[in-house]
């Protein structure tokens, strides 16, 4: 090819990528000012959960969206993060910041160990295995006295502090923390998209045989995706524990959580950079509002909402809400 043509293509591509990064930067900075306008605790709670699920879904999307290994057991990693952070803090006084990193590292190791066993399973069998393994984890925690068993773990009361991530009155710091967590997961995905792993994962998802013939090692690709995905999910779990100051097995490891991590990406656009956050912004406020206003004692209302949304999306927009927008990422397909 003529040199100038390649270089103009490359310049256009680079510009598109930077535009995307700039857009994300602007959105994050704009979001950071939201607490100036939203003062009531309930709305703040909804915003924090929305960003948390955006970050979690972004993490889930790395393994399941990009690499195509659909996991419905990510509650296991979330729980690992929540329990590691809580146990280290409550039993040993280790600051949650270290707990978050430790929980993330532990979850990544567990993901590698489970991956070594499960990645030989294809498609639906893999998904079923993830559900079963997460349920086993839930049962184990339920019966582990050191971790509070079914009673859970209560964090000690203390003064508001960034060191211990405890803010009893004003929840704004949690908002900024989780916004930062989301920004990190988004940035990680943005970087991965234009890396060898990013291309390899998508190739593995689309056609494993063809990928292999092009020098892609399937197994190590899946392992890498699983470890990164589990790491960020566990950091989210650790944050959730600090945010609530109390965890029990069902609140951090139930199947419902695995579903809630997958849904935003599925609704917004699976395997895309912006899908998880768009899905979370649509889904989480809707379910929180439904739960508080209509829910009452009928605890299943939010599940009806998920089901309805999935059906509408599947029928009208199988590629997710993102496909409604004009190409958000000019860089993606130059």
């Amino acid at each position, binding site marked *: *090819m*003529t040199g100038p*043509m*390649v270089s103009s*293509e*490359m310049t256009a*591509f680079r510009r598109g990528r930077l535009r995307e990064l700039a857009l994300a930067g602007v959105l994050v900075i704009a979001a950071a000012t939201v607490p100036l306008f939203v003062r009531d605790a309930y709305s703040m709670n909804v915003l924090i959960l929305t960003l948390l699920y955006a970050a979690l879904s972004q993490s889930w999307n790395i393994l399941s969206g990009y690499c195509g290994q659909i996991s419905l057991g990510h509650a296991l990693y979330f729980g690992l993060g929540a329990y590691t952070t809580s146990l280290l803090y409550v039993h040993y006084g280790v600051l949650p910041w270290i707990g978050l990193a430790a929980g993330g590292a532990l979850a990544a190791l567990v993901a590698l160990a489970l991956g070594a066993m499960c990645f030989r399973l294809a498609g639906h069998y893999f998904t079923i295995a993830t559900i079963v393994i997460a349920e086993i984890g839930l049962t184990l925690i339920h019966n582990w006295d050191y971790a509070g068993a079914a009673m859970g773990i209560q964090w000690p009361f203390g003064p508001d502090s960034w060191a211990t991530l405890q803010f009893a009155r004003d929840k704004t710091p949690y908002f900024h923390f989780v916004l930062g967590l989301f920004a990190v997961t988004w940035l990680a995905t943005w970087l991965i998209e*234009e*890396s*060898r792993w*990013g*291309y*390899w994962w*998508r*190739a593995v*998802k*689309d*056609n494993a*045989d*063809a*990928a*292999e*013939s*092009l*020098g*892609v*090692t*399937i197994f190590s690709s899946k392992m890498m995706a699983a470890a990164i995905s589990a790491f960020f999910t566990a950091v989210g779990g650790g944050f959730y524990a600090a945010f609530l100051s109390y965890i029990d097995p069902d609140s951090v490891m139930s199947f419902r959580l695995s579903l809630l991590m997958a849904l935003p990406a599925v609704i917004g656009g699976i*395997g895309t950079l912006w899908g998880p956050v768009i899905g979370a912004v649509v889904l989480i406020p809707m379910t929180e509002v439904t739960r508080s206003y209509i829910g009452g004692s009928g605890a299943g209302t939010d599940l009806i909402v998920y089901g309805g949304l999935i059906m509408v999306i599947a029928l009208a927009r199988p590629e997710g809400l993102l496909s409604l927008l004009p190409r958000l990422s000019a860089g*993606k*397909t*130059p």
Partner: protein
Amino acid sequence: MTALLTCEAVTRVFDGLIANKDISVEIRQGEIVGLIGPNGAGKSTLFNLIAGSFPVTSGRIAFDGRDITGLPAAARCHAGIARTFQVPRSFDSMSVLENVIVGALVRYPKARSARIKALETLDYVGLTGRTARPAGDLTPPERRRLEIARALATEPKLLLLDEVLTGLTPAESRSGVELVRRIRDSGITIVMVEHVMEVVMPLVDRAIVLHLGEVLAEGRPSDIVRDPAVIGAYLGDRHRAA
């Protein structure tokens, strides 16, 4: 000419069915070899054994001076063997360019250099105008070119083409032939499985005819088409039908 690829007594058995039996062939540096034979002759099996899609039951395969019998497909790509698939297997969630980038990443681990290599390769095979299209949107002949581009982007020493000239119009087929020649002239050795004798015979330097899993004949195309055993096994039926 030195041997680039050597198959020694390669045998592959599927559930008791012998698909390849004691096949010993040599592919020399820089030649175009046609692998032909009637349906069920074992062409695809041999092709897949060379590419490493599945292991041999017995025998030995050497490539570029080293034994690759035990290497999986991905490692053979690293060693310098690239292939296309009979039914194109594009990555349909990705653009044409991104498909080729996947191939280029084997030699260019940085995504930026891989992208440059992929753009150059797409130009080489004549898909420049289609780089941004989703791979699934391509027409069947374009998909074949994409398969070739993806394989070429891995900078192979040996390129295995599986029926890339089958099912094309005469014009498409001519430009396909021209592309294959160009690839060979750039120094890449080619083995092609093909059904269409009229297209493949003028193109190849040498033909290997498989029949019932064994090598029936091997030699220059002009000799092969006159070989009574070959005519009986394969060409004969066509000629009678014509």
